[in-house]
């Protein structure tokens, strides 16, 4: 389906991934305009219900991205988030929702471009 334009929402942490996205901008790397970013102070702040709400509101794919373990600006936000993602992803899979539609990642400041290529390829 060539004209399938997937709508992708990226929940990102303000320190690593948002700054990484800025860096991707300053270095003019290209990625699909289907991806839009919502800023959170930390991945620890991303509530699983927001992911549900995003799917329910028509998002085709979701990226949740934050700082590498040990790099979190708040030291443990990403660790808590990881624990929730492990359980939440297990539940979604149990309910028959394709977990490939949710892409979890640690993107350091310079890694944003990897995210964009990943989602572009995936989409």
């Amino acid at each position, binding site marked *: 389906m060539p004209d399938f334009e997937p709508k992708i929402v990226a929940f990102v942490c303000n320190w690593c991934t948002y700054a990484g996205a800025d860096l991707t901008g300053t270095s003019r790397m290209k990625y699909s305009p289907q991806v839009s970013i919502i800023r959170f102070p930390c991945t620890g702040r991303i509530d699983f*219900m927001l992911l549900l709400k995003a799917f329910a509101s028509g998002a085709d794919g979701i990226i949740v991205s934050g700082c590498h373990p040990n790099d979190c600006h708040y030291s443990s936000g990403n660790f808590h988030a990881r624990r929730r993602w492990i*359980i939440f992803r297990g*539940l979604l899979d149990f309910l*028959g929702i394709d977990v490939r539609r949710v892409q*979890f990642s640690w993107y350091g400041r310079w890694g944003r471009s990897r995210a964009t290529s990943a989602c572009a390829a995936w989409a």
Partner: protein
Amino acid sequence: MNALREKARELLAAKTVQVVIGYGRGSGGSARAVFMRAPAQAAELIFDATCLQNLAVYLMKPEVRKLGKAALVATPAALRTILQLAAENQVADNSLLALAPVGEDIMPLATFAAIEAHVAAADHDLSAAEGAELGKFAAMGLEERRRFWEEQFSRCLKCYACRAACPLCYCTRCTVECNQPQWIPVPAHDLGNLEWNVMRAMHLAGRCVNCGDCSRACPVGIPLYLLNQKLISDVSSVFQARSGMAARSDNAMSTFKPNDPEDFIR
């Protein structure tokens, strides 16, 4: 059963407790909760295979708490519930008396330590049958599972009986009642039902003690216990954590280990 009645009469007479919560014969041969205030009522107490309801749910009801110190006929699930409520600072030590039926006689457990010892003696993991049923789901294909739950959730009326029956759903204002923002849509359409059921399961993750009351309460017979058991098995296999085992235990979902295992974060 008469050991139980004897104990209840004795407690009420000596006023060590103000109310004894136990099982009485309900309509159609079922068992229902009875709240005995006077020693004479102790005769109504029964305890047999039909007494499944987790009476600990009444410990959190304001109407019951008003009555004062309670004694509770406690099944193993109820004991685990008490310990989990303790871990969540909802019940204080020595604020209740658990009467654990062991065979024919009754084991009074007055302190959390006693309850912990009693609970620790038995095995509380998911039974082989429960594990097998979860395994059956894992074997099913993604599409097959989606259709199964879509059909189940389509029958949900959003009556929230499961919430009322669950001893750990004691929140005064549940997120469901939050309308700024409206997290869970009020109508019972399929998307709203999915969000509600996922939220309920996630909010019980690392807490649910697998008493099964939610499924028994559901008027349309949705196998809600499967959701909770799935999370119980995940939490115990991945994080080696078990709820309802100790009065002082931190919650699996609000703590972490630096090397929590996962294979999907790139």
